[in-house]
């Protein structure tokens, strides 16, 4: 590992942990927020010049959109939280040598859950007996199932790519297996794990659009209404909001990822 920083696995930007030059080397981070602001501003300007009919005006009430947005964020946050709580410990267990026989099978189950069509899963869960039902809980279970794999796989891969020589050295210094895991393996695996969590988060923001079909609310409500009532103005606005949300969440996760990388170097 070089003294200046760690090389991004994507192969691109060397990240410097030093305070000086941090702004300059991270100036590219400003791009996304600027694009999002310009895009939202353009849509808002366009909407403000249109004469809205009753249906459009009702759908575009700021208070209603804020409620949808809030529900959407809550769904994405809860489901990502549970994905982390479930997939990270499971991934750590799977990365241990003893778990090798079942590793492939468990990852295959994760892949299977991701491959199921989320709409079908949501409706099935919604009709399952309590505590399932047409509620937020059912939606979160569906989202967690769909987004489990990236975190699970990246945790396993992140731990496996740690140099065995480092682990051996740690054990040689007298560290217990647990201390080796907590103080050597996990810190070195964190960048890969965070990349997986970022994928899951963005996946959840996108899939939460389906929540409206089973009474879970969210920004999907606006999209479905605009589509069934054929109001392109509302559809474009809703699409812009979801796109902006996904971009900003991905951006935030990207910032966190970069900070984590810089710290674990």
């Amino acid at each position: 590992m070089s003294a200046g920083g760690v090389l991004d696995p994507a192969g691109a930007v060397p990240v410097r942990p030093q305070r000086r030059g941090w702004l300059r080397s991270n100036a590219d981070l400003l791009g996304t927020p600027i694009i999002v602001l310009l895009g939202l501003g353009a849509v808002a300007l366009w909407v403000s010049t249109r004469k809205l009919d009753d249906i459009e005006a009702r759908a575009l009430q700021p208070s209603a959109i804020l409620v949808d947005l809030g529900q959407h964020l809550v769904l994405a946050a809860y489901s990502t939280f549970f994905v982390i709580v479930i997939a990270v410990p499971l991934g750590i267990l799977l990365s241990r040598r003893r778990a090798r026989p079942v590793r492939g099978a468990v990852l295959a189950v994760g892949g299977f859950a991701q491959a199921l069509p989320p709409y079908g899963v949501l409706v099935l869960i919604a009709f399952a007996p309590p505590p399932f039902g047409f509620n937020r809980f059912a939606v979160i279970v569906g989202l967690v199932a769909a987004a489990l794999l990236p975190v699970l796989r990246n945790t396993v891969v992140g731990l496996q790519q740690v140099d065995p020589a480092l682990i051996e050295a740690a054990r040689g210094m007298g560290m217990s297996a647990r201390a080796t895991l907590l103080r050597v393996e996990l810190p070195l695996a964190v960048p890969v794990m965070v990349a997986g969590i970022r994928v899951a988060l963005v996946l959840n923001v996108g899939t939460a659009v389906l929540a409206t079909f089973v009474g879970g609310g969210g920004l999907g409500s606006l999209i479905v209404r605009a589509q069934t009532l054929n109001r392109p103005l509302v559809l474009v606005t809703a699409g812009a909001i979801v796109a902006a949300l996904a971009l900003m969440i991905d951006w935030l996760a990207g910032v966190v990822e970069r900070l984590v990388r810089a710290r674990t170097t």
Partner: protein
Amino acid sequence: MRWTIDGRSGWYASALALVGAVALMLTGCGALNSSGPSAQGGSIAQGPLLQGQSYNVGGKEFDEQKVLCQLTIAALQAAKATANDMCGIVGSVPTRAALTSGAIDLYWEYTGTAWTTHLKQSNPIPDSQQQYLAVKQADAANNIVWLDPTPFENTYALGVKKETADRLGVRTLSDFAKLVNSGSPEATLCVAQEFVGRNDGLPGLEKAYGFQVPTGKLKTLDEGPIYQAVANGNPCNFGEVFTTDGRILALGLTVLTDDKSFFPKFNAAVSIRREAFDRNPDIAKVLNPIAAKLTNDVMINLNKQVSQDGKDPRAVARTWLQQQGFIGS
């Protein structure tokens, strides 16, 4: 620019047409299973024929539309025309886009949907006949011809399980308004997004009957699952339904009486591209007598055979046409 759907307006219409075309491919009801010698004879064969004509018959994805689509195909075949089966396009907007783009030549549309969704009007006309005439007139500008409407009226209603209605003593929408205003925890309502957004949906209903369902008791789901959700009483006891849906019978639901006549009544009619209509206007003489026989009871019964008894819409349509003497056996 003004958004319009008239087949000439830029990328939006093209995009919709593409969606429609993809939907057609995905539903997999291509032209392969369309022709068949079964629809011969009967009263249609004695009337004006459409020899040498070929029509792409479309329809939406739900049971009533499948039946109407198959009725049309069988009738056109009995009149010696070629009818290509393009039934089962998902959604009203893609189906209409398929019509305006020329991917299909005709399909059954409801006057209310045409007025609110396709013609972008906010307020429906209370009288069903006036509503039909207004749609027919407005759509002439889009080069779409409307044949005669059905007597059956498909309209919004609130449905509830029979036992729940008895237990709560709710028979009419006024009773429901009273129940909501009493703050009863039983007054839960399931609706779809379209119903929430339309003037003749929930906003107008609440105003007409003087109630407001609190947000915690209002669930917005997809239209399909609402029937089962109401039958289960979970998550709601009441739900938005369509009056001719076969699942009302199948699941033992009852429809609340609209005692203030709030919900506008909408008929269905064949909407056909003018170019396809002008090729042989006798198509009206083939299809209008069928529309005239489609009363509420007939339509509910046909829908039930598909929704509850699991019969093939094609078989249901042909059997009914034979019983009515439109086609021979």
